[in-house]
Protein backbone atom coordinates (compact mmCIF):
# COMPACT_ATOMS: atom_id res chain seq x y z
CA UNK A 1 0.00 0.00 0.00
CA UNK A 2 1.11 3.58 -0.64
CA UNK A 3 1.12 4.32 3.11
CA UNK A 4 3.90 1.92 4.04
CA UNK A 5 6.19 3.15 1.27
CA UNK A 6 5.75 6.75 2.33
CA UNK A 7 6.25 5.90 5.97
CA UNK A 8 9.60 4.34 5.16
CA UNK A 9 10.56 7.52 3.31
CA UNK A 10 9.55 9.79 6.19
CA UNK A 11 11.42 7.96 8.93
CA UNK A 12 14.97 9.12 8.40
CA UNK A 13 17.38 8.45 11.22
CA UNK A 14 16.45 6.79 14.54
CA UNK A 15 12.86 7.45 15.58
CA UNK A 16 12.15 9.61 18.64
CA UNK A 17 9.28 7.33 19.59
CA UNK A 18 8.45 3.87 18.36
CA UNK A 19 5.20 2.08 19.10
CA UNK A 20 5.40 -1.69 18.58
CA UNK A 21 2.11 -3.61 18.61
CA UNK A 22 0.65 -1.18 21.10
CA UNK A 23 -2.86 -1.82 22.38
CA UNK A 24 -4.93 -0.47 25.22
CA UNK A 25 -7.89 -2.17 26.84
CA UNK A 26 -9.62 -0.27 29.64
CA UNK A 27 -10.79 -1.90 32.86
CA UNK A 28 -14.39 -1.94 31.61
CA UNK A 29 -13.34 -4.12 28.65
CA UNK A 30 -13.38 -1.43 25.95
CA UNK A 31 -10.55 -1.85 23.47
CA UNK A 32 -9.41 1.74 22.83
CA UNK A 33 -6.58 0.89 20.45
CA UNK A 34 -5.13 -2.28 19.02
CA UNK A 35 -1.94 -3.27 17.20
CA UNK A 36 -0.52 0.19 16.57
CA UNK A 37 2.85 0.14 14.76
CA UNK A 38 4.26 3.63 14.45
CA UNK A 39 7.66 5.28 14.34
CA UNK A 40 7.98 9.04 14.68
CA UNK A 41 11.09 10.54 13.07
CA UNK A 42 13.12 13.23 14.81
CA UNK A 43 11.99 16.73 13.85
CA UNK A 44 8.84 15.51 12.09
CA UNK A 45 5.38 17.06 12.35
CA UNK A 46 2.87 14.20 12.51
CA UNK A 47 -0.90 14.46 12.84
CA UNK A 48 -3.06 11.69 14.24
CA UNK A 49 -6.35 12.11 12.41
CA UNK A 50 -9.58 10.24 12.94
CA UNK A 51 -13.19 10.31 14.12
CA UNK A 52 -13.98 10.48 17.82
CA UNK A 53 -13.48 7.16 19.55
CA UNK A 54 -10.62 6.06 17.31
CA UNK A 55 -8.17 6.16 20.20
CA UNK A 56 -5.98 9.00 18.92
CA UNK A 57 -5.96 10.71 22.32
CA UNK A 58 -5.25 7.38 23.99
CA UNK A 59 -2.19 6.91 21.78
CA UNK A 60 -1.00 10.41 22.66
CA UNK A 61 -1.44 9.83 26.39
CA UNK A 62 0.44 6.55 26.16
CA UNK A 63 3.33 8.27 24.40
CA UNK A 64 3.30 10.88 27.19
CA UNK A 65 3.51 8.09 29.76
CA UNK A 66 0.24 9.18 31.39
CA UNK A 67 -1.30 5.77 30.79
CA UNK A 68 0.39 2.43 30.19
CA UNK A 69 -0.35 0.22 27.18
CA UNK A 70 -1.86 -3.20 27.95
CA UNK A 71 -0.05 -4.85 25.04
CA UNK A 72 3.06 -4.02 23.03
CA UNK A 73 5.62 -1.44 24.03
CA UNK A 74 6.61 2.16 23.49
CA UNK A 75 10.28 2.90 22.97
CA UNK A 76 11.63 6.38 23.51
CA UNK A 77 14.99 7.62 22.18
CA UNK A 78 17.66 7.99 24.88
CA UNK A 79 16.63 10.49 27.51
CA UNK A 80 13.16 10.54 26.02
CA UNK A 81 11.23 10.01 29.20
CA UNK A 82 13.01 12.44 31.47
CA UNK A 83 10.96 15.19 33.07
CA UNK A 84 10.66 18.19 30.78
CA UNK A 85 11.61 16.28 27.65
CA UNK A 86 7.98 15.97 26.65
CA UNK A 87 5.60 18.94 26.40
CA UNK A 88 1.85 18.37 26.44
CA UNK A 89 -0.91 20.72 25.31
CA UNK A 90 -4.43 19.69 26.33
CA UNK A 91 -7.67 20.44 24.52
CA UNK A 92 -8.50 22.98 27.24
CA UNK A 93 -5.84 25.54 28.20
CA UNK A 94 -5.59 23.79 31.62
CA UNK A 95 -4.08 26.78 33.41
CA UNK A 96 -3.99 27.27 37.17
CA UNK A 97 -6.62 30.01 37.71
CA UNK A 98 -4.92 31.24 40.89
CA UNK A 99 -1.63 32.00 39.15
CA UNK A 100 -0.82 34.66 36.56
CA UNK A 101 0.47 33.82 33.07
CA UNK A 102 4.12 33.99 34.11
CA UNK A 103 3.66 31.72 37.13
CA UNK A 104 1.71 29.24 35.00
CA UNK A 105 4.56 29.04 32.50
CA UNK A 106 7.13 28.81 35.30
CA UNK A 107 5.44 25.68 36.70
CA UNK A 108 7.35 22.96 34.80
CA UNK A 109 10.67 24.62 35.68
CA UNK A 110 9.75 25.10 39.35
CA UNK A 111 8.67 21.45 39.56
CA UNK A 112 12.08 20.48 38.17
CA UNK A 113 13.78 22.52 40.88
CA UNK A 114 14.92 25.52 38.81
CA UNK A 115 15.23 28.57 41.07
CA UNK A 116 12.64 31.31 40.95
CA UNK A 117 14.81 33.91 39.21
CA UNK A 118 15.96 31.73 36.35
CA UNK A 119 12.51 30.14 35.93
CA UNK A 120 10.98 33.62 35.72
CA UNK A 121 13.39 34.72 33.02
CA UNK A 122 12.91 31.60 30.94
CA UNK A 123 9.12 31.75 31.35
CA UNK A 124 9.05 35.41 30.27
CA UNK A 125 11.08 34.48 27.17
CA UNK A 126 8.66 31.61 26.40
CA UNK A 127 5.67 33.96 26.75
CA UNK A 128 7.33 36.47 24.42
CA UNK A 129 7.96 33.67 21.89
CA UNK A 130 4.22 32.95 21.66
CA UNK A 131 3.42 36.66 21.26
CA UNK A 132 2.37 37.36 24.83
CA UNK A 133 5.08 39.79 25.97
CA UNK A 134 3.44 42.26 28.35
CA UNK A 135 0.83 39.78 29.62
CA UNK A 136 3.05 38.19 32.29
CA UNK A 137 0.95 39.53 35.18
CA UNK A 138 -2.45 38.74 33.60
CA UNK A 139 -4.58 36.10 35.28
CA UNK A 140 -6.17 33.44 33.02
CA UNK A 141 -9.66 34.88 33.53
CA UNK A 142 -8.57 38.15 31.90
CA UNK A 143 -7.31 36.38 28.75
CA UNK A 144 -9.24 35.31 25.64
CA UNK A 145 -9.46 31.66 24.58
CA UNK A 146 -6.66 32.08 22.02
CA UNK A 147 -4.41 33.86 24.51
CA UNK A 148 -4.97 31.15 27.13
CA UNK A 149 -3.98 28.53 24.56
CA UNK A 150 -0.83 30.54 23.82
CA UNK A 151 0.05 30.46 27.53
CA UNK A 152 -0.53 26.72 27.49
CA UNK A 153 1.83 26.33 24.50
CA UNK A 154 4.45 28.54 26.18
CA UNK A 155 4.25 26.34 29.27
CA UNK A 156 4.74 23.18 27.16
CA UNK A 157 7.75 24.73 25.38
CA UNK A 158 9.46 26.36 28.37
CA UNK A 159 11.49 23.23 29.17
CA UNK A 160 12.62 23.06 25.51
CA UNK A 161 11.15 19.57 25.04
CA UNK A 162 12.29 17.31 22.24
CA UNK A 163 8.74 16.08 21.79
CA UNK A 164 5.61 18.24 21.81
CA UNK A 165 2.31 16.39 22.13
CA UNK A 166 -0.91 18.27 21.35
CA UNK A 167 -4.42 16.91 21.91
CA UNK A 168 -6.82 18.88 19.68
CA UNK A 169 -5.49 22.13 21.15
CA UNK A 170 -7.36 24.52 18.86
CA UNK A 171 -10.68 22.67 18.57
CA UNK A 172 -12.53 25.14 20.80
CA UNK A 173 -11.24 28.31 19.09
CA UNK A 174 -12.90 30.38 16.37
CA UNK A 175 -11.59 29.89 12.85
CA UNK A 176 -9.65 33.17 12.55
CA UNK A 177 -7.83 32.51 15.80
CA UNK A 178 -7.24 28.89 14.85
CA UNK A 179 -5.59 29.84 11.55
CA UNK A 180 -3.43 32.37 13.32
CA UNK A 181 -2.32 29.84 15.94
CA UNK A 182 -1.67 27.22 13.23
CA UNK A 183 0.76 29.65 11.57
CA UNK A 184 2.42 30.57 14.87
CA UNK A 185 2.77 26.91 15.83
CA UNK A 186 4.57 26.19 12.53
CA UNK A 187 6.87 29.17 13.09
CA UNK A 188 7.75 27.89 16.57
CA UNK A 189 8.25 24.37 15.23
CA UNK A 190 10.70 25.61 12.59
CA UNK A 191 12.56 27.77 15.08
CA UNK A 192 12.81 25.28 17.94
CA UNK A 193 13.17 22.04 15.95
CA UNK A 194 11.08 19.87 18.27
CA UNK A 195 9.19 16.80 17.08
CA UNK A 196 5.44 17.38 17.05
CA UNK A 197 2.56 14.92 17.37
CA UNK A 198 -0.74 16.67 16.81
CA UNK A 199 -4.12 15.04 17.43
CA UNK A 200 -7.01 16.49 15.43
CA UNK A 201 -10.29 15.55 13.79
CA UNK A 202 -9.95 18.26 11.14
CA UNK A 203 -8.67 17.17 7.72
CA UNK A 204 -7.84 20.78 6.78
CA UNK A 205 -5.88 21.45 9.93
CA UNK A 206 -3.89 18.23 9.63
CA UNK A 207 -2.96 18.90 5.98
CA UNK A 208 -2.02 22.50 6.67
CA UNK A 209 0.27 21.64 9.58
CA UNK A 210 1.81 18.25 9.05
CA UNK A 211 4.47 16.56 7.08
CA UNK A 212 2.82 13.24 7.76
CA UNK A 213 -0.76 12.25 8.60
CA UNK A 214 -1.60 9.01 10.36
CA UNK A 215 -5.27 8.20 9.76
CA UNK A 216 -7.01 6.14 12.43
CA UNK A 217 -10.36 4.30 12.53
CA UNK A 218 -12.59 3.37 15.45
CA UNK A 219 -13.91 0.12 16.98
CA UNK A 220 -11.25 -0.95 17.63
CA UNK A 221 -8.94 2.07 17.36
CA UNK A 222 -6.25 1.30 14.78
CA UNK A 223 -4.04 2.91 12.16
CA UNK A 224 -5.51 2.59 8.65
CA UNK A 225 -3.45 4.95 6.50
CA UNK A 226 -0.17 6.84 6.62
CA UNK A 227 0.02 9.79 4.23
CA UNK A 228 2.89 12.14 3.51
CA UNK A 229 2.19 15.80 2.77
CA UNK A 230 5.26 16.78 0.75
CA UNK A 231 4.69 20.53 0.56
CA UNK A 232 7.54 22.77 1.60
CA UNK A 233 7.65 24.93 4.70
CA UNK A 234 7.13 27.73 5.56
CA UNK A 235 3.49 27.33 4.65
CA UNK A 236 1.37 30.47 4.67
CA UNK A 237 -2.05 31.65 3.62
CA UNK A 238 -1.10 31.07 -0.02
CA UNK A 239 -0.77 27.34 0.70
CA UNK A 240 -4.30 27.28 2.10
CA UNK A 241 -5.73 28.28 -1.28
CA UNK A 242 -3.36 26.28 -3.50
CA UNK A 243 -4.38 23.36 -5.73
CA UNK A 244 -1.74 21.27 -3.96
CA UNK A 245 -3.47 21.84 -0.62
CA UNK A 246 -6.87 20.94 -2.10
CA UNK A 247 -5.46 17.73 -3.62
CA UNK A 248 -3.96 16.65 -0.29
CA UNK A 249 -7.21 17.41 1.50
CA UNK A 250 -9.10 15.25 -0.97
CA UNK A 251 -6.62 12.41 -0.59
CA UNK A 252 -6.75 12.49 3.23
CA UNK A 253 -10.52 12.90 3.20
CA UNK A 254 -10.93 9.81 1.05
CA UNK A 255 -8.66 7.79 3.33
CA UNK A 256 -10.72 8.95 6.30
CA UNK A 257 -13.99 7.96 4.61
CA UNK A 258 -12.63 4.56 3.70
CA UNK A 259 -11.60 4.19 7.33
CA UNK A 260 -15.09 5.00 8.50
CA UNK A 261 -16.46 2.39 6.11
CA UNK A 262 -18.26 4.66 3.65
Amino acid at each position, binding site marked *: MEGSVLQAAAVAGPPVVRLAGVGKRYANGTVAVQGVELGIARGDFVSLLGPSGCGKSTVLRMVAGLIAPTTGRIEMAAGGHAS*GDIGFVFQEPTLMPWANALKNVMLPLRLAGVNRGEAGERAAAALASVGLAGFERSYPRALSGGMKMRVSIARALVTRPRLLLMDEPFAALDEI*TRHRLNNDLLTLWQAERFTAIFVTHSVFESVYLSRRIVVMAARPGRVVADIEVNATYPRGEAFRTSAEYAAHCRQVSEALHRAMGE
Partner: protein
Amino acid sequence: MSVSLSANEAASAPVENRERRILGLTAEGWLRILAPLAIGIVALGAWEWAVRANDVPSYILPGPVEIGRTLVRDWGTLRVSLWITLEITFAALFVAALLGVALAVLFAQSRMIELSLFPYAVILQVTPIVAIAPLIIIWVDDIRIALLICAWIVAFFPILSNTTLGLNSADHNLQDLFRLYRASRWQVLRRLRLPTAMPYFLGGLRISGGLALIGAIVAEFVAGTGGRASGLAYRILEAGYQLQIPRMFAALVLISVTGVVIFLAMTLVSHLALRHWHESAMKERK
Protein backbone atom coordinates in the same frame (compact mmCIF):
# COMPACT_ATOMS: atom_id res chain seq x y z
CA MET B 1 7.62 35.21 9.99
CA SER B 2 7.32 36.05 13.65
CA VAL B 3 4.83 35.10 16.29
CA SER B 4 2.53 37.83 17.54
CA LEU B 5 -0.91 38.25 18.99
CA SER B 6 -3.73 38.96 16.53
CA ALA B 7 -6.08 41.89 17.08
CA ASN B 8 -8.94 39.39 17.04
CA GLU B 9 -7.57 37.51 20.05
CA ALA B 10 -6.72 40.60 22.06
CA ALA B 11 -10.16 42.08 21.37
CA SER B 12 -11.98 39.02 22.65
CA ALA B 13 -10.26 39.12 26.03
CA PRO B 14 -12.77 39.72 28.82
CA VAL B 15 -13.02 43.36 29.87
CA GLU B 16 -13.15 44.34 33.50
CA ASN B 17 -16.51 45.71 34.48
CA ARG B 18 -16.00 49.37 35.39
CA GLU B 19 -19.10 50.83 36.98
CA ARG B 20 -19.53 54.42 38.10
CA ARG B 21 -18.70 54.75 41.78
CA ILE B 22 -20.07 57.14 44.39
CA LEU B 23 -17.70 57.59 47.34
CA GLY B 24 -15.91 54.35 46.46
CA LEU B 25 -19.06 52.21 46.20
CA THR B 26 -21.22 51.28 43.21
CA ALA B 27 -24.95 52.05 43.17
CA GLU B 28 -25.52 48.36 43.93
CA GLY B 29 -23.11 48.57 46.88
CA TRP B 30 -24.93 51.56 48.38
CA LEU B 31 -28.28 49.83 47.94
CA ARG B 32 -26.93 46.82 49.75
CA ILE B 33 -26.06 48.99 52.76
CA LEU B 34 -28.88 51.52 52.75
CA ALA B 35 -31.87 49.23 52.13
CA PRO B 36 -31.39 46.98 55.21
CA LEU B 37 -30.44 50.05 57.26
CA ALA B 38 -33.74 51.73 56.40
CA ILE B 39 -35.70 48.61 57.36
CA GLY B 40 -33.79 48.47 60.66
CA ILE B 41 -34.55 52.08 61.53
CA VAL B 42 -38.25 51.66 60.73
CA ALA B 43 -38.48 48.46 62.83
CA LEU B 44 -36.66 50.02 65.81
CA GLY B 45 -38.90 53.08 65.56
CA ALA B 46 -42.03 50.92 65.59
CA TRP B 47 -40.70 48.96 68.57
CA GLU B 48 -39.94 52.11 70.56
CA TRP B 49 -43.36 53.52 69.70
CA ALA B 50 -45.18 50.32 70.71
CA VAL B 51 -43.37 50.18 74.06
CA ARG B 52 -44.16 53.83 74.89
CA ALA B 53 -47.74 53.83 73.62
CA ASN B 54 -48.68 50.74 75.66
CA ASP B 55 -46.61 51.64 78.73
CA VAL B 56 -44.86 48.25 78.66
CA PRO B 57 -42.70 47.93 81.81
CA SER B 58 -38.99 47.53 81.03
CA TYR B 59 -38.78 44.15 82.85
CA ILE B 60 -41.17 42.78 80.23
CA LEU B 61 -39.84 44.51 77.13
CA PRO B 62 -37.47 47.48 77.15
CA GLY B 63 -37.46 49.85 74.15
CA PRO B 64 -34.37 50.25 71.95
CA VAL B 65 -33.52 53.61 73.47
CA GLU B 66 -33.35 52.13 76.97
CA ILE B 67 -31.30 49.18 75.71
CA GLY B 68 -28.89 51.63 74.13
CA ARG B 69 -28.65 53.60 77.37
CA THR B 70 -27.97 50.39 79.34
CA LEU B 71 -25.31 49.39 76.82
CA VAL B 72 -23.49 52.66 77.46
CA ARG B 73 -24.00 52.59 81.25
CA ASP B 74 -22.89 48.95 81.73
CA TRP B 75 -20.18 49.08 79.07
CA GLY B 76 -17.49 48.57 81.71
CA THR B 77 -18.73 45.09 82.71
CA LEU B 78 -20.04 44.13 79.28
CA ARG B 79 -16.75 45.00 77.61
CA VAL B 80 -14.86 42.58 79.84
CA SER B 81 -17.38 39.83 79.08
CA LEU B 82 -17.36 40.57 75.37
CA TRP B 83 -13.59 40.30 75.35
CA ILE B 84 -13.69 36.92 77.10
CA THR B 85 -16.28 35.54 74.67
CA LEU B 86 -14.29 36.86 71.74
CA GLU B 87 -11.12 35.25 73.04
CA ILE B 88 -12.77 31.85 73.25
CA THR B 89 -14.47 32.27 69.86
CA PHE B 90 -11.31 33.19 68.00
CA ALA B 91 -9.12 30.66 69.77
CA ALA B 92 -11.66 27.97 68.87
CA LEU B 93 -11.85 29.18 65.27
CA PHE B 94 -8.07 29.25 64.98
CA VAL B 95 -7.69 25.72 66.34
CA ALA B 96 -10.60 24.54 64.16
CA ALA B 97 -8.95 25.99 61.04
CA LEU B 98 -5.56 24.52 61.94
CA LEU B 99 -6.78 21.04 62.85
CA GLY B 100 -9.45 21.04 60.13
CA VAL B 101 -6.89 21.71 57.40
CA ALA B 102 -4.34 19.31 58.92
CA LEU B 103 -6.89 16.50 59.10
CA ALA B 104 -8.18 17.25 55.59
CA VAL B 105 -4.62 17.02 54.27
CA LEU B 106 -4.23 13.70 56.09
CA PHE B 107 -7.52 12.46 54.55
CA ALA B 108 -6.32 13.54 51.12
CA GLN B 109 -3.23 11.35 51.43
CA SER B 110 -5.20 8.14 51.35
CA ARG B 111 -8.77 7.09 50.73
CA MET B 112 -8.31 4.50 53.48
CA ILE B 113 -7.61 7.09 56.18
CA GLU B 114 -10.52 9.22 55.00
CA LEU B 115 -12.98 6.32 54.99
CA SER B 116 -11.97 5.16 58.45
CA LEU B 117 -11.92 8.56 60.19
CA PHE B 118 -14.60 10.61 58.46
CA PRO B 119 -17.58 8.91 60.18
CA TYR B 120 -16.15 9.93 63.56
CA ALA B 121 -15.92 13.53 62.44
CA VAL B 122 -19.59 13.28 61.50
CA ILE B 123 -20.49 11.81 64.90
CA LEU B 124 -18.69 14.68 66.58
CA GLN B 125 -20.67 17.09 64.42
CA VAL B 126 -24.16 15.65 64.97
CA THR B 127 -23.86 15.20 68.75
CA PRO B 128 -25.67 18.17 70.33
CA ILE B 129 -23.11 20.35 72.08
CA VAL B 130 -25.56 21.22 74.90
CA ALA B 131 -25.67 17.54 75.78
CA ILE B 132 -21.92 16.92 75.96
CA ALA B 133 -20.83 20.32 77.27
CA PRO B 134 -21.54 19.36 80.94
CA LEU B 135 -19.34 16.27 80.54
CA ILE B 136 -16.50 18.24 79.04
CA ILE B 137 -16.80 20.83 81.81
CA ILE B 138 -16.55 18.05 84.40
CA TRP B 139 -13.61 16.33 82.70
CA VAL B 140 -11.52 19.42 82.03
CA ASP B 141 -10.34 21.33 85.08
CA ASP B 142 -9.62 24.63 83.41
CA ILE B 143 -13.00 26.11 82.52
CA ARG B 144 -11.51 28.26 79.71
CA ILE B 145 -10.08 25.18 78.04
CA ALA B 146 -13.41 23.36 78.46
CA LEU B 147 -15.26 26.24 76.77
CA LEU B 148 -12.66 26.29 74.02
CA ILE B 149 -13.14 22.58 73.35
CA CYS B 150 -16.93 23.01 73.14
CA ALA B 151 -16.66 25.91 70.68
CA TRP B 152 -14.07 23.98 68.68
CA ILE B 153 -16.29 20.89 68.32
CA VAL B 154 -19.03 23.03 66.80
CA ALA B 155 -16.73 25.04 64.53
CA PHE B 156 -14.44 22.35 63.25
CA PHE B 157 -16.61 20.21 60.96
CA PRO B 158 -17.44 22.70 58.17
CA ILE B 159 -13.74 23.47 57.74
CA LEU B 160 -12.80 19.79 57.68
CA SER B 161 -15.51 18.68 55.25
CA ASN B 162 -15.14 21.67 52.91
CA THR B 163 -11.35 21.46 52.78
CA THR B 164 -11.47 17.70 52.18
CA LEU B 165 -13.86 18.27 49.27
CA GLY B 166 -11.60 21.02 47.90
CA LEU B 167 -8.43 18.92 48.10
CA ASN B 168 -10.16 16.22 46.05
CA SER B 169 -11.45 18.66 43.41
CA ALA B 170 -8.22 19.35 41.52
CA ASP B 171 -8.65 19.52 37.73
CA HIS B 172 -7.87 16.15 36.11
CA ASN B 173 -5.82 17.60 33.27
CA LEU B 174 -3.76 19.63 35.74
CA GLN B 175 -3.16 16.45 37.74
CA ASP B 176 -1.95 14.79 34.53
CA LEU B 177 0.30 17.76 33.85
CA PHE B 178 1.88 17.45 37.30
CA ARG B 179 2.35 13.74 36.66
CA LEU B 180 3.98 14.46 33.30
CA TYR B 181 6.55 16.65 35.04
CA ARG B 182 7.17 14.04 37.74
CA ALA B 183 5.89 16.25 40.55
CA SER B 184 6.35 14.80 44.04
CA ARG B 185 3.41 14.24 46.38
CA TRP B 186 4.41 17.34 48.28
CA GLN B 187 4.62 19.47 45.12
CA VAL B 188 1.16 18.31 44.02
CA LEU B 189 -0.21 19.17 47.46
CA ARG B 190 1.42 22.59 47.68
CA ARG B 191 1.05 23.79 44.11
CA LEU B 192 -2.18 22.12 43.01
CA ARG B 193 -4.40 20.66 45.74
CA LEU B 194 -4.05 23.34 48.42
CA PRO B 195 -4.70 26.24 46.00
CA THR B 196 -7.68 24.34 44.57
CA ALA B 197 -9.03 23.83 48.11
CA MET B 198 -8.63 27.50 49.05
CA PRO B 199 -12.15 28.70 48.06
CA TYR B 200 -13.68 25.65 49.74
CA PHE B 201 -11.68 26.26 52.93
CA LEU B 202 -12.70 29.92 53.02
CA GLY B 203 -16.34 28.94 52.54
CA GLY B 204 -16.00 26.61 55.53
CA LEU B 205 -14.29 29.31 57.57
CA ARG B 206 -17.21 31.66 56.93
CA ILE B 207 -19.66 29.14 58.38
CA SER B 208 -17.34 28.17 61.23
CA GLY B 209 -16.85 31.77 62.36
CA GLY B 210 -20.51 32.05 63.32
CA LEU B 211 -20.59 28.53 64.73
CA ALA B 212 -17.57 29.15 66.98
CA LEU B 213 -19.41 32.08 68.55
CA ILE B 214 -22.55 29.99 69.06
CA GLY B 215 -20.48 27.15 70.52
CA ALA B 216 -18.76 29.51 72.94
CA ILE B 217 -22.07 31.04 74.08
CA VAL B 218 -23.80 27.68 74.53
CA ALA B 219 -20.89 26.32 76.54
CA GLU B 220 -20.88 29.44 78.75
CA PHE B 221 -24.58 28.98 79.39
CA VAL B 222 -24.02 25.38 80.46
CA ALA B 223 -20.98 26.23 82.57
CA GLY B 224 -22.74 29.19 84.16
CA THR B 225 -19.51 30.38 85.76
CA GLY B 226 -19.79 33.53 87.80
CA GLY B 227 -17.32 36.15 88.82
CA ARG B 228 -15.73 38.95 86.87
CA ALA B 229 -14.02 36.78 84.32
CA SER B 230 -17.11 35.39 82.59
CA GLY B 231 -18.48 35.82 79.11
CA LEU B 232 -21.56 37.42 77.61
CA ALA B 233 -23.73 34.35 78.12
CA TYR B 234 -23.22 34.57 81.85
CA ARG B 235 -24.18 38.27 81.77
CA ILE B 236 -27.47 37.22 80.16
CA LEU B 237 -28.10 34.55 82.81
CA GLU B 238 -27.20 36.95 85.61
CA ALA B 239 -29.39 39.75 84.23
CA GLY B 240 -32.26 37.26 83.92
CA TYR B 241 -31.98 36.23 87.59
CA GLN B 242 -31.92 39.89 88.64
CA LEU B 243 -34.78 40.84 86.29
CA GLN B 244 -32.50 43.43 84.64
CA ILE B 245 -34.04 42.82 81.28
CA PRO B 246 -32.49 45.87 79.53
CA ARG B 247 -29.03 44.56 80.37
CA MET B 248 -29.98 41.14 79.07
CA PHE B 249 -30.97 42.75 75.80
CA ALA B 250 -27.77 44.80 75.72
CA ALA B 251 -25.70 41.60 76.01
CA LEU B 252 -27.84 40.02 73.31
CA VAL B 253 -27.22 42.98 71.00
CA LEU B 254 -23.48 42.62 71.57
CA ILE B 255 -23.60 38.92 70.65
CA SER B 256 -25.53 39.60 67.43
CA VAL B 257 -23.24 42.45 66.42
CA THR B 258 -20.22 40.25 67.12
CA GLY B 259 -21.66 37.49 64.92
CA VAL B 260 -22.28 39.92 62.06
CA VAL B 261 -18.79 41.42 62.39
CA ILE B 262 -17.19 37.95 62.33
CA PHE B 263 -19.19 37.05 59.22
CA LEU B 264 -18.20 40.28 57.48
CA ALA B 265 -14.55 39.81 58.45
CA MET B 266 -14.52 36.28 57.01
CA THR B 267 -16.22 37.52 53.83
CA LEU B 268 -13.56 40.21 53.48
CA VAL B 269 -10.72 37.71 54.02
CA SER B 270 -12.28 35.42 51.43
CA HIS B 271 -12.71 38.26 48.94
CA LEU B 272 -9.13 39.47 49.37
CA ALA B 273 -7.71 35.98 48.95
CA LEU B 274 -9.73 35.10 45.84
CA ARG B 275 -10.30 38.41 44.07
CA HIS B 276 -7.83 37.67 41.28
CA TRP B 277 -9.22 34.38 40.15
CA HIS B 278 -12.31 32.89 41.71
CA GLU B 279 -15.84 33.33 40.35
CA SER B 280 -17.30 33.92 43.81
CA ALA B 281 -15.06 36.95 44.36
CA MET B 282 -15.64 38.28 40.85
CA LYS B 283 -19.43 38.41 41.17
CA GLU B 284 -19.03 41.25 43.67
CA ARG B 285 -17.99 43.46 40.78
CA LYS B 286 -21.10 42.90 38.71
